[in-house]
Each structure stands twice: as C-alpha cells, then as structure tokens.
C-alpha cells in the first residue's frame, strides 16, 4: 500500500506541489483531477520516486520510499504514462515484456512464465494478434493499450496512470477504465488515475482528489467532491450536475452560454 503525507515537490526551482497527502488502499481506484499545471503529474511522479519529494513522507508498505532500490519499487509500483517515440523497431511482445524486467535475473532471458503473463496482458488489453507488430506501426490508441499491458504485466500492486485515455476512442476509453477497475476490485491492486474526463472518473473512481495550483482542494467520494462549487473553484467553469438515468452515476455537464 502506498501512502503519502504532506509532501511537496519542486521543479526547476518552483514548488509545484504542496502539502499533498494520499492513501492508496488496496482495491480502490482514485481519480486525480485538476486543470493543467495543477501539479498532478508532479505529484504522481513523486509517488514512485521519479521526482524527489521534500518534506512529509512517502511510505510503501509502511517503509519510507527512499529505502527501496529502483528494482524493488518497480515490483510494487507500475506507471502508465505518455509513451515516447523510439527510433528502434520494438515488437509489442518485446515492449510488454519490459514489464517483466524486475522479475528474474538481471541478465538473462525471460522465463516461460514471463512470456505467458505478457501474452495474457496483451490479450487483456484487446491487442491479441498484435504481438509481432512493431510499436511504431500501431495507432496512438493501440500503443496506449500496450503501455497499459506492460504496466499490468509487472504484477505490481500499485498502478499510477497519467492520462491513460488521452488517445483512445470512446469504446477503448471505457475499456481502459474497466480494466483498471477490475485490477483493483478483482486483483486487489490500487490505482491512481490522472484524467480529464470527469464523468468517467465519477463512474469508476472510489475516491476523487481535485488539485489546483499545487494543493488539494477537495478529496472524498465522487458524491462528496463533485459539486458545482468545487468544480467552479477548481476548473473555473459553470456546471450542472445530475444523475445518469441508466446507471445512476453522477453526471457533470458544463454550461456555456
């Protein structure tokens, strides 16, 4: 379980996150919302140690994050982020197998089990049959799913996702959230998802955290957090809230004249 209390993060000399606290409980999906520049990505990066956190503490299974080696962190925390273009042809299977790096020896080939797990994750993310294709031959959405597959392949208990639905079509956006939710409720993982889609967050998140200007403005269940006042304060938009008539989830609609 990953826990952060009152951490701050600085980037290029500016403090971009202040007094950030979060408790990622097993089986729960937390959505992190906020306008651009709110510090969401920096907070996420601090949680897996990519960015240094000052003040406060980050505890992984009760132990300060600094005490872990990179390898150990990677067995417990997996990241889904915007994926960089690579100049080298890498197949989907090779890419997803990257998630198995921390399992097994430093040097050597992946085991049968590694390959099976990778294949399963590929199928899970609806990329079955794409194994031999090269990453740079896939569409943006397909690549994004491969990124998720890789993260799931690590079998890590904590998933940190930075705008995982950015390039996905409607159907796959839904799929993505479903998958992550399933990992949480079904496999006992915990997930933090940064997203711009408030409605999907409302539908799938167990908890919502809203950030603006580096600090948390609101956190709690979707019902507690998603109010017109909060949305107006954080996003500077007028909204009207109601319930989706089919499934009862909170529905946020922005108003514009």
């Amino acid at each position: 379980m990953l826990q952060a209390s009152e951490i701050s993060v600085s980037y290029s000399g500016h403090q971009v996150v202040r007094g950030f606290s979060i408790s990622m409980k097993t089986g729960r999906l937390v959505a992190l919302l906020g306008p651009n520049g709110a510090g969401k990505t920096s907070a996420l990066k601090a949680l897996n140690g990519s960015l240094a956190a000052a003040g406060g503490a980050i505890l992984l299974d009760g132990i300060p994050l600094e005490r872990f080696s990179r390898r150990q962190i990677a067995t417990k925390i997996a990241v889904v982020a915007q994926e960089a273009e690579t100049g080298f042809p890498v197949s989907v299977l090779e890419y997803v197998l990257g998630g198995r790096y921390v399992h097994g020896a430093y040097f050597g080939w992946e085991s049968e089990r590694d390959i099976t797990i990778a294949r399963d994750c590929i199928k899970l993310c609806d990329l079955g049959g794409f194994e031999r294709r090269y990453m740079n031959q896939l569409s943006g959405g397909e690549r994004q799913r491969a990124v998720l597959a890789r993260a799931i392949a690590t079998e890590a208990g904590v998933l940190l996702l930075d705008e995982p639905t950015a390039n996905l079509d409607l159907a796959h956006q839904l799929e993505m959230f479903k998958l992550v939710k399933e990992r949480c409720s079904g496999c006992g993982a915990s997930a933090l998802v940064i997203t711009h889609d408030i409605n999907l967050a409302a539908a799938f998140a167990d908890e919502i955290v809203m950030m603006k200007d580096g600090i948390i403005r609101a956190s709690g269940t979707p019902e507690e957090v998603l109010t017109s006042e909060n949305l107006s304060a954080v996003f500077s938009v007028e909204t009207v809230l109601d319930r989706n008539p089919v499934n009862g989830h909170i529905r946020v609609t922005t108003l514009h004249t």
Partner: protein
Amino acid sequence: MKGQTGKFLILLFALASSLTVAILIGSESISFSRWSDLDRTILFDIRIPRVLLGAGIGAALAVSGAALQALLRNPLAEPYLLGVSNGAALGTMLAIFIAGEVEIIRPVFAFIGAVLATVAVYQMARSKAGMNVERLVLSGVIVTTMLSSIIVLLTSVLDAAKLRSFTFWLLGDLSQASKWGFILVSAAALLGTAALLIQARSLNLLMIGERDAFDFGVEVSRVRALVFGVSAALVGVSVSAGGSVGYVGLIVPHLVRMMVGSDNRNVIPLAAIGGATFVVLADTIARVAIAPRELPVGAITALLGAPLFIYLLRK
C-alpha cells in the same frame, strides 16, 4: 527471443572465413609447401597480429556503437559522433608526445581522453529538465568538432615529421600493430562485450525511454555511467592501437539489427562478431588493393560504409 542461433552461426562462419582469407592473402604470398624463415616472419610477426588487431578493433567499436545507440535511443549515435573517438585520439597524441616509446601509456591516456570527452558532452547536455537526447547528440557534435580542431592545431604546430603519423592515426592504420597491441585490444573487446552484455536487458528498457526504464526498475544513472565508461574504454583502447576507424560503430549494429531485431542480448554479441568481420575484410582490402603500397583502413571502411549507410537511411 533467443532462437537466433542460426544467424549467430552464420556470422561466426563469416568471421571465420574472413579471418582465414585475411591470413592467407597479403602483399607477399606465403608458400606453405616451401616454408621458409621469411614465411614464418611474415605470417607470425606481421600478418597474424595485424589481422587479430583488426578483429579486436572491429568488435570493440561495433559493440561500443551498439551500446551507445541503445543508451541514447538514437540509431545514428556512434563513438565518433559523440566525441569519444577524438578524445581518445587526443589522449593518444599526448601520450606519444610526453612518453614517446612507452607504449603501454597510450591506451591509458586514450581512455582518459575518451572519458573526459564523454564527461564534457554530458555536462553540456545536462539541463534542469534532465538529460535530453537531442541536446546530448548536439553537444557530442560540438565536442567532436572542437577536439578535431585541437588535433589539427597541434599537428600544425608540431613539426612536419610527426605530422605524417598523426594524420594516419586519424584515418585508422593497423600497420603499427605490435604484439601488445592485438592482445590488449582483443582482451578489451571480449571483456567489454561481456560487460555490456550483462547490461543488455537494462539497455532494452533504456532504448525505449529513460522515463520508462526508470519507472520499470532500471538504475538509470548507474547503467548509463557504466555503459559510457565501458564504451569509452573500448574506444580508447581501439583508437590508441589503430587510430579512428570510422563507420564500424554505425554500420555494423544497424546491419545486425536488420538481421535479428533490436534486442540487445542478441545485438551486442552479434555486433562484436560482425564488427570483427567487417574490419578484417576492410583491412585485407587496405593491404592488398595497391600492394605493396597500403591504404589506411579507415578509408576502406568509409568507402564500404557510406553507400551502405545511405541505402539504410532510405529504407
């Protein structure tokens, strides 16, 4: 992902063939039926050490190129481009200038020169946002050209007698092989390949992205330092023994990737074999084309490598 045994055997065969051909032909023909002292001298004192030196240098440069390309996520990265070769050349020149006949000093100075050049490139490329591949390559180009200018300046100031040898260093020249030369380079090539092979899995991740590598458990700074260090050592030892033999670090890894894909666990050992084959062949041409005169091997690797490179670029 293994299953490349077939290709491995093909390349081994190619290496064995090129070594055989190289040992059998030269500017003087050796008669095995009427074996004489002269034949022995030619074969064991001159030809074999030189061929083995070529193999060692080829392996070292190819592997170093492959590793740097993976590290920098750029298939065009190469020791020369990053200033490593010129740093090594400058180090060698200083060693010759200061310690003249003491040969063992040269690879040491070359290594130091290569490392210093790498560090310089690094410092230039670093910004608050962290390491960025474009900045790194650009810094490399700046450092390389700066060092080239210093080399040219020094060779203009030093007297004309030394000038000749330096220009040949910079184009690659395997004729100055001493017995030490090939043993040291071959040992370095073997050790270096092994060291980089151990990092191959990490390099596979680094090749995709530094962020990715970091997130998925690679100790990025450590692996980076190690790969740069080993590459610098490989380049340093090669340049101090035979000058800057260009294109090997660029072409061979590329060709190998075309054969077996990008997995560094395959690319690195195959690049070593491929690099050795390439330089042995190029040097054989250099020795024989206008016999009894010789061409610098770097000219041949460029003549072979450049068209190949253009062809690859267009693919």
